C-alpha cells in the first residue's frame, strides 16, 4: 500500500484537472476522482504492468463516460452555461482571466469525445498511441477526433460557428 501511495498520490492533481475540464462542475468532478481512487485502491494488485498514470486515467475516463451515459438516459441535460465554468476559471491568473474563461466556454461546447481527446493530448500530454489505448479506439480515431476538436474550437474562437448549443449537443 505504501508503494501505491507513492505512485498514485502525485497524480491526483492531474486527475482532478482532467475530470474538471471534462465534467466542468467541481463537485461532480471531485466525486468522480474519489470514485476512481477507491477503485484504484481496491484493484491495485490486479493492475497489469505499465503506466500507473494511464491506468488511473482509463479508470477515470470510463467512470466519466458512464456518468455521461446515465445523464443522457435520464434525459438530464448537462448544463453548459452554468456557474461551473465561472468556477473553473476563477483561480486563473488575473491578466489571462478573460481569455481563459473564453477558451473553456468554447471547449465546453465540443462533444464529449472530442473534448476528451483534446484534453488528453494537448493538456495531459498523452501520446496519440496512449490516448488511443486509454479511450479504447484506434489511433486513426484519436487523430480524426483531435482534428475535428481543433477545427471546431477554432471556428468557435473566430465566431464562425452558429453556437447553437442545443443542436451541437445532440450530435453525438
Amino acid at each position, binding site marked *: 500500500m505504501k508503494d501505491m501511495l507513492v505512485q498514485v498520490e502525485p497524480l*491526483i492533481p492531474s486527475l*482532478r484537472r482532467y475530470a474538471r475540464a471534462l465534467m466542468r462542475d467541481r463537485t461532480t468532478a471531485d466525486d468522480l476522482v*474519489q470514485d476512481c481512487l477507491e477503485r484504484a*485502491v481496491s484493484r491495485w494488485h490486479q493492475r497489469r504492468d505499465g503506466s500507473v498514470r494511464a491506468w488511473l486515467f482509463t479508470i477515470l475516463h470510463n467512470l466519466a463516460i458512464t456518468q455521461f451515459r446515465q445523464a443522457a438516459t435520464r434525459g438530464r441535460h448537462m448544463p453548459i452555461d452554468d456557474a461551473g465554468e465561472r468556477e473553473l476559471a476563477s483561480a*486563473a491568473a488575473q491578466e489571462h482571466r478573460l481569455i481563459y474563461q473564453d477558451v473553456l466556454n468554447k471547449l465546453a461546447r465540443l462533444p464529449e469525445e472530442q473534448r476528451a481527446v483534446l484534453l488528453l493530448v*494537448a493538456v495531459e500530454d498523452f501520446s496519440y498511441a496512449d490516448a488511443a489505448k486509454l479511450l479504447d479506439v484506434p489511433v486513426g480515431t484519436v*487523430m480524426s477526433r483531435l482534428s475535428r476538436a481543433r477545427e471546431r474550437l477554432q471556428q468557435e474562437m473566430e465566431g464562425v460557428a452558429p453556437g447553437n448549443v442545443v443542436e451541437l449537443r445532440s450530435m453525438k
Partner: protein
Amino acid sequence: MSQRPITEDDLHAFVDQALAPERRGEVASYLKDHPDAAGRVAAFASQREQLRGALASIADEPVPAELNLSHIIEGRKRRPLRAWMAIAALLLVSIGGLGGWTVRSLLQGGSNGLSALAQEAAYSYGVYAPDRVRPVEIRASDSAELTQWVSGRLKRAVKVPDLSTSGYRLMGGRLVATSHGPAAMFMYDDDQGDRLVMLTRPMNSGSQDAPMMPHAAGDIAGFAWADRGMGYTLVGQLPGDTLRPIANEIRKQAGPI
C-alpha cells in the same frame, strides 16, 4: 528521392511536439511555403497554450480532504467486500424469500438446474475473485496442464474459452467443489483489473440443453446455460448488457471439440 507528403496528422503532431526531429524539420519547411497551413498550426498551438494555461490552476489547488489517498486506503480496510455482501443477499433470498421447498429444488437442480449452477458460480466468484494471493490454482501460462486436469476430473473434454476479443485475458483456473461434484472454474481479467469467472460442470441427466438464462445477486450478475449435458455460467460485477455478449462468445467456443 522525394520526401513523404505532409499529412494532417503531421500538422497535429507538430503542434503537440510529437514528431521525430527529422520529420519536424520537414514539416517546418513545408509550413514556410504554405501560409494557410502555417496559420492553422499557429492557431492550434495557441489553443493548446490557452487550454493549458486555463486549466493549470486546477492542478495547483490543494487536494480536498475526501481525495486524501491515505484516508481512502484506511476507509477501504474497514469495509466488507462487496462480493460477500452480494452473496449474503443471495442466501437471504434463497432461504427467506423462496421457502424451503424452492431452496431444495434449487440445490438439487430444480427446474433445469441452471439456478443451482448460477449460485455455485456466484459462490466461487465471491471466494476467488477478490483473492489477491492465489485467485487461481494453475496459471494461464500452464493452460494445457489446466485443461488436462479439469477434463480428467470432470470426465469431459473441457475447453478454455479465449475471451481476448472481448478484452479479457485468461488468468488461470482451478477445480472447485459444488453440491453436484467438481466444477472447472476459469478466471479472466481486463486492463482495469475487472475479473470474470466462468464455471462449468456436467449437468444432471434431465437437463442436457437449456437456453441462456440471466441471473443476478447484488452486484454480481451472470448468465447460465446448458449445452449437450454440460452446464456453463459466466459471472462478474458488471451489468448484464456487458456480460451477455461475452457469454455468447463462450457458448460459441465451448461447442464440441
